[in-house]
């Protein structure tokens, strides 16, 4: 993975000193709360319901064991012994004190981490496919691109006071695991059919929130060398033209929608043609320098399937199920990419205690080249595991309550913190996730239902990605109580789609019943081998709506 050089190191240390100074100027009245708020947000500090919150950047979801141990330490020393992994592959602590934040930033800088641009109206921490470098369907590793963008977007003089937040995601695979179509910019590495040159497909104007939109392609094949100049052109058009009169209309998706993708593309291409690309772009040697950090580890030469693994699976059905559900095939023979579920039934989705973080850090060090990935689905990945080591890992995870075999299944729920923590939330999310998990806790039943993504947001801002959940749940306030709106048919992959609202909002206690009815429609209607989302696409929403209406009427 990437390591800081002297320049990165100095940059991050200087940012810490700058933040320390900003805090002291806030306290002495030199800057007002209105002026300080964007400054603290751009360094990841929110004021939430009960306390401040600190969001730590995990660039493109890649962590070392050393870094994860440091996060565990910070959680213990300055927080309440746990942290929350987010849908943007970051980690947030729920209880830090503002007075401690500069010290926490020092500790992060010690392990080459920071909180730069994890919030605020700027280019946010860049995200990427969590199986980067190991997935079999990968054309090229997205991490060098993501790292280049991380550096380029950090404290950008021109683009730090944008109309609204701006999120960039990168994938290098055919199957989109980074939700690139729901980002302000989505980049997909692909091969040009004629030249076979690896280029970027550039999508702009995706985003969830109040007005969900799927990103639109503005460039089919952008030569890799031109990346930064092209991004600069997009950002300049957005910074100048994006709406600033209404925060709900300020994202680039609204600009693209209002002027049309053709006109947006024309303006970007005009600016791109006019600006001096070579003075902006990183030179190929710099790109190569970054890429070198991401070369594959020295894999052992192993047979495609491990006999040790097969034998332990045969002797232990629970282990076999976990391997089947939580691992994916790997580029390297005899290896697996393992997803560790942070969704044990009844826990807050994405939460991990400091002890659990240390265990994962230890396991990564012992079995996965000391590297961990954070997924946008709020789980952790050990990317380089020998198949024969899976059993030992499973046993140790089990002791820490981390061996749930539910990746991609109905209890692997994405959930924002909701009104249990968040000052913006209109309703709670976590208890809804927990109630659904309890309803579907049975392993056989989950497995029989198969792949089904439930995503829950506690407000319209959609941090829980509810629009692109196969089943989405949005918590709102209706006449002084929490009310939950259910959507169907969303998709976060390369077939990105926004879900359709099934009917009126439900009270919290009715949500598990409603989910169960929806699932029952699928179970009775599905064709052989048909997944939930395939079934929804084939038979359409009508049967699901009918089932939903029954419960909506029964409780109305």
């Amino acid at each position, binding site marked *: 993975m990437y390591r800081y050089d002297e320049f990165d190191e100095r940059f991050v240390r200087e940012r810490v000193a700058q933040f320390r100074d900003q805090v002291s100027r806030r*306290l002495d009245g030199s800057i007002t709360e209105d002026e300080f708020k964007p400054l603290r947000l751009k360094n990841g500090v929110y004021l939430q319901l*009960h*306390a401040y919150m600190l969001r730590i950047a995990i660039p493109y979801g890649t962590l070392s064991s050393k870094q994860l141990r440091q996060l565990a330490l910070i959680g213990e020393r300055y927080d309440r012994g746990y942290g929350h992994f987010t849908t943007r592959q970051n980690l947030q602590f729920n209880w830090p004190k*503002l007075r401690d934040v500069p010290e926490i930033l020092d500790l992060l800088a010690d392990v080459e981490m920071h909180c730069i641009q994890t919030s605020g109206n700027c280019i946010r921490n860049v995200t990427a496919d969590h199986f980067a470098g190991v997935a079999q369907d990968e054309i090229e590793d997205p991490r060098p691109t993501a790292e280049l963008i991380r550096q380029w977007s950090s404290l950008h003089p021109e683009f730090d006071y944008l109309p609204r937040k701006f999120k960039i995601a990168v994938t290098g695979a055919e199957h989109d695991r980074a939700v690139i179509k729901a980002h302000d910019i989505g980049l997909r590495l692909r091969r040009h059919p004629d030249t076979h040159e690896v280029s970027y497909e550039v999508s702009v104007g995706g985003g969830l929130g109040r007005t969900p939109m799927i990103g639109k392609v503005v460039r089919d094949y952008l030569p890799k060398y031109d990346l930064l100049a092209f991004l600069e052109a997009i950002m300049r058009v957005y910074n100048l033209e994006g709406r600033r009169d209404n925060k709900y209309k300020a994202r680039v998706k609204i600009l693209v929608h209002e002027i049309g993708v053709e006109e947006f593309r024309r303006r970007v291409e005009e600016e791109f043609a006019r600006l001096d690309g070579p003075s902006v772009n990183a030179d190929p040697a710099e790109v190569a320098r970054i890429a070198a950090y991401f070369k594959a580890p020295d894999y052992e030469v192993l047979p495609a399937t491990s006999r040790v693994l097969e034998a332990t699976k045969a002797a232990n059905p629970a282990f076999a199920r976990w391997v089947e559900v939580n691992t994916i095939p790997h580029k390297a023979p005899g290896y697996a990419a393992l997803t560790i579920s942070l969704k044990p039934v009844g826990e807050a989705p994405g939460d991990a205690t400091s002890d659990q973080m240390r265990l994962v850090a230890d396991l990564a060090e012992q079995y996965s080249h000391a590297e961990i990935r954070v997924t946008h689905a709020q789980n952790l990945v050990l990317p380089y595991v020998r198949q024969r080591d899976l059993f030992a890992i499973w046993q140790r995870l089990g002791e820490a309550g981390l061996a749930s075999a539910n990746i991609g299944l109905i209890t692997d729920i994405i959930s924002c913190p909701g*009104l*249990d923590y968040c000052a913006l939330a209109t309703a709670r999310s976590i208890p809804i996730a927990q109630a659904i998990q309890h309803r579907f806790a049975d392993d056989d039943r989950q497995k029989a239902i198969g792949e089904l993504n439930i995503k829950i947001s506690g407000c319209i801002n959609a941090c829980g990605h509810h629009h692109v959940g196969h089943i989405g749940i949005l918590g709102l306030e209706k006449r*002084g109580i*929490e009310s939950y709106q259910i959507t169907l048919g969303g998709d976060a992959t390369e077939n990105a789609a926004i879900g359709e609202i099934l009917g009126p909002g439900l009270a919290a206690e009715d949500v598990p019943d409603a989910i169960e009815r929806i699932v029952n429609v699928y179970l009775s209607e599905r064709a052989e081998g048909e997944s939930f989302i395939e079934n929804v696409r084939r038979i359409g929403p009508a049967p699901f709506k009918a089932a939903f209406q029954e419960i909506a009427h029964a409780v109305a």
Partner: protein
Amino acid sequence: MAAAPKRVPLPAILLANDLLDGDVVFAVAGAAGQLAWTRDAALALVASDDATAESLEAFAAAELAGNRVVDAYLVDVTMETGQPVPRHFRERFKTLGPSNRPDLGKQAGDGISAGQRA
């Protein structure tokens, strides 16, 4: 000048977050009648009349200007067993803590010393 924002219905309490710590704090009547902050919602001064509400608003303005708290505002409450409880569920969570973690926050006694606890 814009009209003053409409005040919440009374009775009401004043809450805010401590600027340096972030903790939720409540305005409480001090010994000599002056206002101060407490971390215990049960001790919050309940304004049942306009004069008290105005004194809470004046205190909020002074404390915001003095850079001691942020996000100070009045919250309408009902009285339950002698203690103020916010009417809205959002503000109720602020006086308690995360509902999924009864071991954390004010509901677990965070920042509320035993002697101070009502």
